[in-house]
Every structure is written in structure tokens, then in C-alpha cells.
């Protein structure tokens, strides 16, 4: 009987003799890149010293998006066309007082002691993600995603194209042949998944004390060390894309965020769903992340990623929002 590793070995999707990636001489492009590196023309490292991991991510995303149809969309009737440019970040109310995260932790812990909202597997999230290209302007794709788990460990996922800021207006959606306009609420997918089980984060239930939650998030992101602030924010998004947290988990997460370095309270915002939140900003190299939290319960409401430097080759300007998620209970 073959063991599990042998079975997996036979299921190698790209075996060593694969004609696309089999051993042999380097192709022209690979040779050229090696020559560039050897000549000291390290594009990322030398020409763009300010680049960050986040920017690399965006650069990778750039290769996969945007067809020529975008040009047509940009010149469409302004009364019906969606907003295709990268939207601007949330504005902090000038007359608001920043609330330290520690204060929110106290509120979250009070909320948890009150025994209110419970943990639920599944999520409800509205997101806006930017797609980029070297030849076309960036576009923003608004999507609402709902995941519900059933008692038998099966789950369903519903994904629709919608922008709640513009009810009824047609929105951009991605398709095989590139982005196109669809009706508000257009169902991108509706799928039911068979029962599945995992005892590993983020599929296993998140703990509700900060120390264990930190370890859980580290495992969820398979990090080699304790998560820094950037990793913690990444892990927060992964967690909330999988779970709807209860009050106790909210409090634990708020504690972790309060202990993270570099999250600066900036004041009150109204998020894209019209909810009041307290905003906390983390400034990375080349990008900025704004965490939006419920001032009453300490729950994370949203996360906004903004470019902090111009990237003219992708039509991105400093201040453009590259990704925005708003989680809904």
C-alpha cells in the first residue's frame, strides 16, 4: 500500500520533466535577468530604493489585471459610469479626539464581560481592491462576500459585485476577458462546499486570550517569529475573512493591536459603510494602513491600505487606496 507521501508525490502538478519547467538551458528572459543582476541593474533594489513588500505585492498584482475595455469605461457617460479611479482614503474628523487603543481594549473587555456577541464561523465583508496594469489606469473592484457554515461542516459562499456607496449603480467586475460593467448585486459566484475540517488556524476557532491568539495568528500566517505590526494587521484580515468574532475574541484582538508598535490613534472617521469608527494608522515604507475600530466594542470594522508614494508606471498616486475591507457582523 502506497503511503501518503508517495500518493502525493504521484500527484505532483509540475513534475521534473514538465515541458514548461523541465531542466535545460535558461530561456532568453532568464538569461537577460541574470545579466541585469550581474551588471548591478537590480531594478527593485537599485532603481527603486524606497520599495516595500507591499509595493511588490501591488506590482505582482499589476501583471494580472485590466484589459483594454477599461479605456472605454473611463470615457463612459459620467452619470452612469462607476468610479474607476482608486478612491481617496477616509478623512479623519478634524474636531475629533484620538482615543488610545488601551481605552478601546477596556471597552472591549467590558463588552466581553457582558457576554454579548458570540463567535461565529463565516464572514461578511465588503471589499474594494485595486487592479493595476502597466498600460492602463488602475481600477477598483467592489465586492461583497458572505460565507456561512452549516452544522455538518459544509459551507456556502456568496460573492456579489456591489458598491454600497452607490446603490443601484452599475459596478466594475472582473471576468475572464477582463473587467466589465455589471448590474449592482450581480452574483459573481454562489457555491456550496462539502464538509471540510481542519484543526489548524485560521480554520480552527480563534482563542479569546491575547497570548494564545498571538500564537494562533502566527500559525495562521505560518510566521517564523512573533508577528510584527505589519504581520499582525495581515493576520487580522485573514482572521476576519474567516471568522465573525465574538466579544471575547474582539477584546483579545484589541489587546494585541494595542500592544503592537507603531499604531497611532488619529481620531474619528466615518467608514465606507457609514459607521463611526476610531482610526489607527500604521506607516510602512511606501504604504499606510488605517485600522478602523468600533469605539464602543473595540471590534475591528475595517482596514484601509493606501499608497504613500507615487507609482507612475501603474498610474498610482500617493493617497490612492489600494485595498479596503469592511467587515460586517
Amino acid at each position, binding site marked *: 500500500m502506497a503511503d501518503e507521501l508517495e*500518493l502525493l508525490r*504521484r*500527484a505532483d502538478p509540475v513534475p521534473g520533466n514538465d515541458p514548461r519547467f523541465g531542466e535545460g538551458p535558461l530561456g532568453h528572459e532568464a538569461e537577460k535577468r541574470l545579466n541585469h543582476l550581474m551588471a548591478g541593474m537590480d531594478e527593485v533594489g537599485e532603481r527603486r530604493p524606497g520599495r516595500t513588500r507591499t509595493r*511588490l505585492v501591488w506590482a505582482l498584482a499589476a501583471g494580472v489585471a485590466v484589459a483594454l475595455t477599461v479605456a472605454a469605461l473611463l470615457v463612459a457617460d459620467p452619470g452612469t459610469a462607476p468610479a474607476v479611479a482608486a478612491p481617496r482614503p477616509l478623512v479623519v474628523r478634524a474636531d475629533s479626539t484620538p482615543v488610545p487603543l488601551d481605552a478601546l481594549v477596556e471597552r472591549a473587555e467590558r463588552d466581553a464581560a457582558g457576554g454579548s456577541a458570540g463567535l461565529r464561523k463565516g464572514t461578511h465583508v465588503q471589499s474594494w481592491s485595486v487592479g493595476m496594469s502597466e498600460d492602463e489606469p488602475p481600477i477598483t473592484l467592489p465586492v461583497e462576500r458572505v460565507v456561512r457554515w452549516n452544522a455538518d461542516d459544509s459551507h456556502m459562499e456568496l460573492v456579489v459585485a456591489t458598491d454600497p456607496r452607490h446603490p443601484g449603480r452599475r459596478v466594475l467586475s472582473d471576468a475572464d476577458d477582463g473587467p466589465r460593467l455589471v448590474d449592482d448585486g450581480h452574483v459573481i459566484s454562489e457555491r456550496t462546499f462539502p464538509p471540510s475540517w481542519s484543526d489548524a488556524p485560521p480554520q480552527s476557532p480563534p482563542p479569546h486570550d491575547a497570548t494564545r491568539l498571538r500564537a494562533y495568528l502566527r500559525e495562521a500566517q505560518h510566521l517564523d517569529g512573533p508577528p510584527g505590526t505589519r504581520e499582525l494587521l495581515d493576520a487580522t484580515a485573514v482572521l476576519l475573512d474567516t471568522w465573525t468574532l465574538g466579544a471575547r475574541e474582539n477584546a483579545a484582538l484589541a489587546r494585541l493591536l494595542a500592544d503592537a508598535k507603531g499604531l497611532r490613534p488619529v481620531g474619528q472617521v466615518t467608514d465606507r459603510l457609514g459607521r463611526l469608527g476610531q482610526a489607527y494608522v500604521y506607516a510602512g515604507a511606501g504604504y499606510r494602513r488605517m485600522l478602523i475600530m468600533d469605539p464602543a466594542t473595540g471590534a475591528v470594522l475595517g482596514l484601509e491600505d493606501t499608497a504613500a508614494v507615487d507609482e507612475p508606471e501603474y498610474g498610482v498616486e500617493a493617497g490612492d487606496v489600494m485595498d479596503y475591507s469592511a467587515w460586517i457582523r
Partner: protein
Amino acid sequence: MSNDEIFAAAYREHYWAVSRYVARRLDGRTSEVEEVVAEVFTVAWRRRSDLPASPLPWLYGVARNCLSNAVRGYGRRRRLMDRLGNDETAHGRQIVDSPDSERPAEWVHDALARLSPADQEVLRLAAWEELGVDEIAVTLGCGSRAAAMRLHRARRRLRAEIDRMRIVVTPHTGATETETETDLDTGTPKEQFHG
């Protein structure tokens, strides 16, 4: 040899192995492999003074980080598109699954997909990159004992998933469902398959 020369030799020797590593984890998005591999070697170039004598596991570690960023960066849009199944290769469905086929069966991928990302990665490194425990430790940036433990646990969980995915055959005569075993020697389900 200088660091630059050592790097160039490693680049030439391992370019295709790194490409396969990346291709296996981009779920069939072949067009993006070259771009990610370029990124891997750009990062490796900057860190060429760290290049160990046996560089391949180390290069896999660099690739793992690049992919981790890349996958996050595709954003929800990409993840959702993948989930939609628009790209059949994203789910390994290009693989023919029949008793006569020598190609791998889709259900093995399904079993793997039910595990955590960490379990999946350590299993792929062992099975697809054919790394030993010490090399896995280099790629994952952990100690050998931890790597061995991770691999052991992951194998156990994969075995459990495979066992869970045993075939349920409904006899033509009607009546009760009977459980029969998958043919583990060929990796091919004998009958209808229930996930």
C-alpha cells in the same frame, strides 16, 4: 569564487527547480510564474552574501516568502476568481483521473487542500521538492526537530483526510451504502467518490 559568481552558478543550476516550486504553488497560473521567479532571484541577489553551500532549500525559503506576499497581494479579487473555478487549472482539474491513467488523481489534491497551509507546505516540500528534514528546516527557517515534527503531524493529518475520503459505493441493487477502500497503490478511486 566571488559571491557574484556563486550566485550566478546557483541561478543557472536551480532556475528551473525554483520555477517548478513557484508553479506548483501558483495553482496553474503559469503566466505569473516567471514574474515571481524573477522576484525570487532579485531578492536572492540582494542577499547573495547569505547564500549557503547548498543553496536550493534556501532559495525555496526566499521563494516561499515572495509567494506569501504575492498571494496576499493578488487581493480578494484573485482569491475570489480562483474560488469561482474560472481557471480550471487552479484546482488541478487539468489532471485526468481514470483507472487507466498514470497521472495523479484529483482527489489527492482535494485531500491536501483540506489541510492547513502550513501542513500543505511541509508535505509539498517533502513530496514534490523531495527535500529531507534538514533541508525542509532551512526552507521553513526552523530547527530540524521542529521540521521533523511538522512533517510527522502533517503526514498524519493527510493520512486522516485520505481515510475520510474513502469511497462510498451505492450498490446497484439499492439498499445500504457500503464503504470500500480506495486503491492506494494506484492512487485511483475505484468507484464514485464522495468528498
